[in-house]
């Protein structure tokens, strides 16, 4: 029994899959939106995606070229730091492993800054993007990803809090050492593991 509890408060309903819902999260079937500013408008004719920083030769794709890359389907649970968790979300996109086949990383590359249209950035350790752990999402639940959810393309790193899954992704910059991105500079966790409830920097 906890040392402190709220009298009369109890679980309202059994979560569908409680072992898949991290501490402090609740399950939702909606897809809430959390963004710091207006939704950017990105014409597909000028859209581009780059891999740069600590690579031998930077790589850039147009929308057409990017869509010619092999696509995969992903079914993932996603967790937002604002406490909602959505189970079994269905995505289609390009695995980061696929993208990395097109560049040669310099050996000192260990961290990544994801950067986006609208100047959003977020930092992630390189190992957290490889080996099937992350992808660029292009379609959600069978439809092109809506602009307010990051369309035309967003990073998806399902095992971290969802602010790491940068909307309106524009590129990944490889770095030697870790640097805070947009929310991280504002006091949010450098890593963001939902299972450890790493919400704020002081939770790291």
């Amino acid at each position, binding site marked *: *029994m906890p040392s*402190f*509890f709220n009298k009369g*408060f*109890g679980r309202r309903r059994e979560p569908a899959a409680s072992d898949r819902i991290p501490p402090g999260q609740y399950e939702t079937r909606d*897809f*809430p*939106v959390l963004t710091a500013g207006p939704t950017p408008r990105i014409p597909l004719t000028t859209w581009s995606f780059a891999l740069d920083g600590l690579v031998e030769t930077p790589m850039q794709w147009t929308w057409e070229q990017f869509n010619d890359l092999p696509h995969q389907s992903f079914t993932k649970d996603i967790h937002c730091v*604002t406490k909602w968790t959505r189970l079994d979300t269905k995505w289609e996109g390009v695995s980061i492993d696929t993208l990395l086949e097109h560049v040669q990383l310099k050996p000192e590359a260990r961290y990544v800054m994801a950067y986006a249209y609208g100047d959003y950035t977020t930092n992630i350790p390189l190992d957290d993007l490889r080996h099937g752990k992350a992808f660029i999402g292009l379609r959600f639940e069978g439809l092109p990803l809506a602009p307010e959810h990051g369309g035309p393309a967003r990073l998806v790193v399902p095992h971290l809090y969802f602010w790491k899954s940068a909307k309106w992704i524009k590129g990944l910059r490889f770095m030697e050492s870790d640097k805070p991105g947009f929310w991280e500079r504002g*006091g949010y966790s450098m890593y963001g593991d939902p299972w450890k409830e790493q919400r704020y920097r002081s939770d790291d």
Partner: protein
Amino acid sequence: MKKIQWQIASVKAIVQETPRVKTFTLQLPDWIPHLPGQHYDLRLTAEDGYQAERSYSIASPPEQTDEIDLTIELIDDGEVSSYLHDGITVGDPLEVRGPIGGYFVWKDTMATEPLVLIAGGSGVVPLMAMLRHRAQIGATNPTVLLFSVRMDNGVIYQQELERLAEQNTNFRLLLTFTRQPPNGWTGYQRRIDKEMLQEVMAPLNGQPNCFVCGPTLLVEQVASALVDVGLPFERIRTERFGPTGT
């Protein structure tokens, strides 16, 4: 960095703001001055250890020391808001931690620049902290609150907002009713659109700092319309809540 600790606050007062909205004044053993726009996390624990956590905007200004006001809307099927609305009385303990958030905040360095606040429903809460703080520091920057509400009895903080607008000629309060306006209402009666924003911003000199808070759909439309009327991206700060409906 100092850990943002959980602490057990005591409910000092509860005010019914509208039929579905209550303000809880919490006395804090470890009160830390906040910036208007920041929030607190609130955690409920059941006897069996089950916990549920939500974030709530602070409504009170940092001048209100040793306590914070959290204004909370009752959400249908909301396990936390319904417990707070039905199960909490004055004197009860509540576990919170904060203040949190560094982006959707009105800083004193903005106090000389025009300010446009746009709220939908309970999105007015963090904006109220800004207006209360603004009044406390005696700022005279041109300020407007455009507040979209569904019906007559849904205007959170109505009397205080009207009083602020009477006392301070630099602050304009503009309401728009989207479903059911009060009898004899001659003001706006529609969703916030481009024309309304143009009218609201026209008297302001210079580019305002703009804070938009409310349900996702409203914030999406308003932020997008603000870009259309020529406000630069970096002047628009948003906070969204609720489902998208898409």
